[in-house]
């Protein structure tokens, strides 16, 4: 696999991946909003509305609470930057992207953690009750969902004997039977719960709430405005796309290009777009169907994901 890819192809794929995640994030959020509105009997804003919002916000003035330090301004940048690095190295289109040898699943999970920590610190820096409330809640949910993700990832790495994402994807393509093993299915459920928790969707957090007592993510970003708010919104939507794309990569890898060629890459682009869109629609439909959990019930959900992931590792011992 290594060495077969010419440099221009690798560069083109990297650019495609990054641009796809940057543009795809807001579009996916718009699509999910549209689906929810339609199911609830409303027309809803157009799918590209989040992009228009970003353009509007980027031109608005940035403000900063009077007590905040540089952390407050740095947090949105770190959030977007970590997601960009993941978008660059993850094998979203081809099994051998640029720097693919360094695309370690654990490293990607910890990069996501860097983004979450930055946002929580930015929230605490505002010196308001809401910032602290959001940060405390988000970190409590994260303290249980990050481990679940880590263990789920480990369960996936065991059969491939490597935690390198391109390797896992390439080997699951070579051995489709792996995809139906118990550890796959268990870690699939754990992974899904983590995606919902990490991206702040129902039933963990309601992204469209404006009721202070129930806010988690919204409470953290209340003080951001202008270009900073645009970055936060962009970063959050990019994280959702990256998580869904990684999920698609690991559990439904078909379509990812294993050999160079314009045709293969075109198929890969269509495949990943279709998979992420389908997952996004499914998530939106699920959101319409469920109610938000009480905050103190959320840890039960994420702890459940953690237990499922540990069970996945245990079953990885039984079914090699």
């Amino acid at each position: 696999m290594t060495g077969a890819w010419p440099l221009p192809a690798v560069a083109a794929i990297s650019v495609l991946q990054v641009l796809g995640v940057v543009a795809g994030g807001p579009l996916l959020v718009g699509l999910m909003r549209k689906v929810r509105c339609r199911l609830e009997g409303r027309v809803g804003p157009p799918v590209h509305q989040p992009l228009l919002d970003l353009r509007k916000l980027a031109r608005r003035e940035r403000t900063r609470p009077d007590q905040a330090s540089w952390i407050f301004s740095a947090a949105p940048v770190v959030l977007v930057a970590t997601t960009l690095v993941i978008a660059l190295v993850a094998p979203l289109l081809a099994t051998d992207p640029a720097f693919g040898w360094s695309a370690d699943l654990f490293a990607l999970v910890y990069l996501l953690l860097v983004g979450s920590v930055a946002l929580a610190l930015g929230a605490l820096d505002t010196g308001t009750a809401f910032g602290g409330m959001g940060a405390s809640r988000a970190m409590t949910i994260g303290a249980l969902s990050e481990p679940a993700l880590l263990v789920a990832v480990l369960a996936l790495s065991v059969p491939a004997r490597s935690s390198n994402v391109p390797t896992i994807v390439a080997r699951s393509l070579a051995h489709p039977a792996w995809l139906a093993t118990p550890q796959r299915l268990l870690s699939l459920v754990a992974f899904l719960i983590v995606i919902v928790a990490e991206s702040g969707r129902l039933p963990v957090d309601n992204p469209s709430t404006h009721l202070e007592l129930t806010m988690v993510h919204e409470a953290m970003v209340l003080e951001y405005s202008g270009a900073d708010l645009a970055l936060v919104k962009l970063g959050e939507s990019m994280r959702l796309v990256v998580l869904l794309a990684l999920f698609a990569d690991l559990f439904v890898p078909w379509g990812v290009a294993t050999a160079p060629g314009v045709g293969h890459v075109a198929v890969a682009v269509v495949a990943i777009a279709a998979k992420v869109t389908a997952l996004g629609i499914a998530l939106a439909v699920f959101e319409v169907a469920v109610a938000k959990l009480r905050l103190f019930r959320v840890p039960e959900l994420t702890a459940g994901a953690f237990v499922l992931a540990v069970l996945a590792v245990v079953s990885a011992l039984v079914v090699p």
Partner: protein
Amino acid sequence: MTADLLVATTLVGLVAAAAGAAAPERFRARVVSALTAAACACGLAVALDVLRSGRAAVVHTGRLLPLGGLSLALDRFGALFVAISAVVAICAMVFRLGYDGHGFSSRTASCVLPLFVTALLLVPAAASVTTFLFVWELMAVTSLLLVLVDHRRRPEVAVAAQWYAVMTQFGAAALLAGLVLLATHAGGQSFAAIASGSSGMPAWVRGTAFVLVAVGFGSKAGMVPLHVWLPRAHPEAPGPVSALMSAAMVNLGVYGIVRVGDGLLGGGPAWWWLLVMGLGALSALFGSLHAATSTDLKRLLAYSTTDNMGLVLLGVGAAGLFASTGHRSLALVALVAALLHVVFHAMFKGSLFLSASSFQQATGTRDLDRLGGLLRRMPVTGSLFLVGAGAIAALPPLCGFVSEWLLLQALLHGLPSSDPSLAIALPVGVGVLALTGGLTALTFVKAAGIGLLGRPRGTQAAEAGEVPRSMWAGAGVLATLCLVFGVAPSLVVPAVLDAARAVTASRVPGPLVRGWDVGLLGARGVLAPGLLALGLLVAVVLVAGVRSALQRAAVRRTEAWGCGREMQTARMQYTATSFGEPLTRVFEDVLTPAHDLDVSHVAESRYYVEAATFHTSLDDAFERHGYRHAASGLAWWGRLARRVPNGSVHRYLAFGLAALVVVLVVLG
């Protein structure tokens, strides 16, 4: 040459102690710091030389100590620990120049501090049981005296020192019993004799000695359930001493377990290592949970030391388990991961403790609920604390991430396994590692976010200013090393690998890739921390550039939004207690917090409340359930024993006769 330097280390340390006792108050701090740092520099030079060349530095004199003399032999494994202690101690000495803890410049403290540092440097070099126990006890007693420095002003210091004294002497007794058992069966008390004779010892001797030694060293490493002294003594010690204890002294507990278990006994059956792994996992979980709910900054750091030593023991246990089931190469990887974590933990915990002591000096408190807004008031120290917090939370590109990654790799490659002990231990280890990681992230978002960011929660924090340059320089060196080792772990990985090989006498080729990256030979994919750091840097510059290009106007400072209220006060912010409250609720069954609500009513009518006070406390479950009962049992036993000698001469004569009879029966 290296042997001379080892002697020089000891002598300069003793001179520093004498200078501390003799120098006038005006120069005392500077003279003691300089001389102690010089001793550390000698120690560091020996350690680096031994690590590079692999030739042990050996010193033996028959006269200095009774029972076999002083015997020192520093191999690569010991040299790793000497190097860690020396670096931490040099930084602590630089820090000490600006530190003005209460009573810390007294004649006694200035005399004892160099002795403590010298003992820290000599423990890993000891090559016989008597030498080892001598320097070990020297280290324990001097550190106890240093904890006690401020006992006149604050009674809680005396309580903490009492706990420490009891636990460290208990540990030393276990060590003494274990090592003497080994020495008698080996027919010699030098470590070389024990190592060559250990394979022929009966299994019960080896097992008993290992358990005794693990208890003794485990209590020094803060292993649950022997950890109770650590979150009391480390916070009460003066700043530089708390850093030395938490970043250098606890390591020697790990040193001892590995030295005896892998080195002297040459590995052992699976149950030894399952025991170590189990206690390590318990320590990691318990420590991280208590760190996540602590509100005293230094107590939080101390619990996190228990947590990190737990992770190290998890790695050490996994290494032993792999070795006992025939996975030699993985055993080496796990041991390297554990030792790497010891190195990195020393760097970030040292920098965190030193910065926390700076905060304490600047604000007069270490209660997070009274801090806040320190990053704007103490920009340098605050940033250093942030770096340390990021490293301990294993955020790339800082060093904590590399060792956790390597430990995860070792556990991952042990699966799938047909061996039942591995099949149970490894998934549990992975789960513990992951859960600890999540809790640590929460802990240090709390510590940094509540302590450094937002509004100050008290006048002391509001009026704080930056500390003297030497204080942040000391913490700064360690924080810089966190970043350097995180970006380029190849600077330390080969040395750690050599140290691990030296103690296990392992001849396995590999097993780590060479060059800038970290990874296992034979497994596709590596961790490229340098590349990751570069990528992050480029991305951050790019995003920040785009933001400033889009919006050129300066950022406007505004009042934060408060639901339409005009006034925002610091009391509206979350505190460390409220930040950790959801987690306390989640783990209520384990932590069992005590709530106390006192409502007093107005005299005229019960329907009107005059005042309400709410008190919540979280104490250590092991302390409450285990130690308090043990202490009351001991007190009962003491009262009982007091009745026996009632002052009657006849009774004492009867005791004498009974003892004589017993001796005759036993000997006859």
